[in-house]
């Protein structure tokens, strides 16, 4: 049983959610059928297979080639950026494609150092202004991204749990609201939101954004809803019989079961918030995050003859932690998260 839930943990679908066990049974039956069919049609199948293989390869070859080209076109600018971030300003002007001048220990590693020394944003604080440097921005980035991603993931998961496991009428209303909010395209509510944040005192505070991002709307609610529907009720019931309260069941039984999904969703949220510069640009004028700083620094002097390699070094500092995180957890992040159709 436990194995079964393990397997289904990442497999989320609001449609298949209702009949987890029946689906897996059906699959087994199908597999048996297929095995039988294989014996019966074995001769016919081999001849078909040969014909089919030819079709396969041409189509898939073309797709494969397109995908290889795509991958190359994607990696090329990134690698080019990495190499160029190690060139001096003069070197970059004359030598656009080649490796940086000199040996690796002579490359312009100082670009990275100067990012921390010269990337700064003047911020109003009390009476005067003070300069926020890149290291401080990184700290704000971490505060912003960790806090917001935890708030968003936690609230989405709690509400999804309540909706999935407590069959009140209100649960149905919440589910419908999420679907409707997902379909309804509300455009241009940003000015109103800014006004609201100012009125509540959330404006220009990182904790204010944590609270603002702690909503349950969106795709991840559906992901959690599917996961919770798939957890057999027996686990919780056993705990209830032993006298556990609802909170105990939620945090000691249910969350350990879904911790993988929780972690995955939180990581996806973390990456999104780490990279986000448009929200901090509006809401956090006194707490610039690293992505915001990068935007500030790159767009302030985009067309002037500024130090391109240093800007690229700044990009690398923002990019590399996420890239490492992604490559490390790529299997988990791009596993099977699926949603089905929209049901109202």
């Amino acid at each position: 049983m436990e194995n079964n839930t393990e397997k289904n943990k990442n497999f989320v679908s609001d449609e298949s959610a209702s009949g987890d066990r029946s689906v897996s049974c059906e699959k087994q039956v199908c597999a048996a059928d297929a095995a039988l069919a294989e014996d019966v049609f074995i001769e016919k199948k081999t001849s078909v297979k040969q014909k089919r293989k030819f079709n396969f390869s041409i189509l898939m070859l073309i797709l494969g080639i397109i995908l290889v080209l795509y991958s190359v076109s994607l990696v090329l600018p990134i690698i080019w950026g990495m190499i160029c971030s190690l060139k001096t300003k003069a070197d970059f002007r004359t030598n656009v494609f080649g490796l940086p001048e000199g040996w690796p220990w002579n490359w312009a590693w100082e670009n990275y150092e100067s990012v921390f020394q010269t990337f700064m944003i003047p911020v109003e604080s009390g009476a005067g202004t003070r300069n926020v440097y890149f290291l401080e921005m990184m700290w704000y980035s971490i505060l912003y991204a960790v806090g917001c991603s935890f708030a968003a993931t936690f609230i989405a998961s709690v509400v999804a749990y309540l909706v999935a496991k407590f069959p009140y009428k209100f649960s149905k209303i919440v589910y419908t609201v999420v679907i409707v909010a997902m379909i309804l395209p509300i455009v241009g509510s940003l000015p109103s939101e800014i006004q609201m944040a100012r009125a509540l005192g959330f404006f220009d505070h990182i904790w204010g954004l944590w609270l603002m991002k702690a909503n349950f709307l969106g795709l991840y609610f559906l992901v959690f809803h599917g996961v919770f529907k798939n957890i057999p009720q027996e686990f919780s019931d056993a705990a209830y019989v032993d006298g556990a309260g609802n909170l105990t069941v939620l945090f000691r039984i249910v969350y350990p079961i879904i911790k993988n999904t929780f972690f995955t969703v939180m990581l996806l949220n973390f990456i999104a918030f780490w990279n986000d510069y448009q929200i901090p640009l509006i809401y956090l004028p006194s707490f610039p995050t690293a992505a915001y700083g990068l935007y500030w620094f790159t767009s302030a002097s985009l067309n002037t003859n500024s130090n391109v390699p240093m800007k690229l070094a700044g990009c690398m500092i923002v990019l590399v932690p996420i890239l490492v995180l992604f490559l490390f957890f790529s299997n988990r992040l791009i596993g099977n998260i699926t949603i089905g159709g929209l049901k109202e």
Partner: protein
Amino acid sequence: MKKKSKVEKKENEKFAAFKRAVSDFFYNLSVKVHGKMPHKQAGATAIGLKKRNDMIFYCLMMLFPVAQFCTFYIAVNLNSVILAFQSYDTLTGVHSWAGFDNFKLVFYNLFNDPTMLYSAKNSLILYACGLVVGVPLALWFSYYIYKKKPLFRVFKVMLFLPSIISAIAMSVMFTYFAERAIPQLLKLIFNKSFEGLLSGSKTAFGTLVFYSIWIGFGTGILMYSGAMNSISDSVVEAAQIDGIGMIREFFSITIPLIYPTIVTFLVVGVAGIFTNQMNLFSFFGPNAENSLSTFGYYLYKNTQTASFSDYPYLSSMGIVMTIVAVPLTLLVKYLLEKFGPSTD
């Protein structure tokens, strides 16, 4: 040492008092709830008790998410509507009733302001390109991954990579790649000097559309290939026994079976006409050429640089777009569901 323990004790006492207060509060609350259910008052069974506890737990856990939703979804959007009918006096800081003045201005600008006309055109072209090029490519790529053809894992990571890279870092690297490296390369090949792809007026729009599609595969691939993976093997096997080709399988089996997921994506995507910024803000900050503008960019840029007095106008523009977008989305949903392949 002693002092510390004293402090600790004090803290503990404080905490205990707090705990007592909280539990008293809950006790009172539960008594009140209990009082409201007279038929269960006498001799509440264990099941009745559990039901009541569930109710209390549910309400308490829902309290914050619902309050958050009411503030940052319902109240924000209502405020947006109210704001649209107001005007703001910068000197006195007073909002006053403005009737339909803002809307008149919006409609006037929609048909006379060249930026708005460009925005409309560009947004529609971008959406159409995404629909005609982006979605089919994403489907074919997902099919390749679903069929587990050579290197499919690598391609999956590659296709998802742009979604996790900071938009600002990616656009900075792409900018310099397109502005410096590509013209240099073309010069080497054709022995003629070329303009940068983004600064050249002829190539800028095309480059931006390409870029949007180029980095936009991530989520689609994840969802489509996830949906394809949940297609029952028996259906595919049966079709293959009948000698179905790869292309035929794609159109007659794969697409109809994942159709609900495609509909979800297309329906949610309609809002993109009004919200897609075409990465203009990442590339140019608030200084993009008017002829490149899109609705999403126009709204974000003006909100970001706006003062209080601009908010009513921006809100009314948002409302006009919402009034167009909502029926459009519902229409697309209706049409896709009516004329799509049956999912049985």
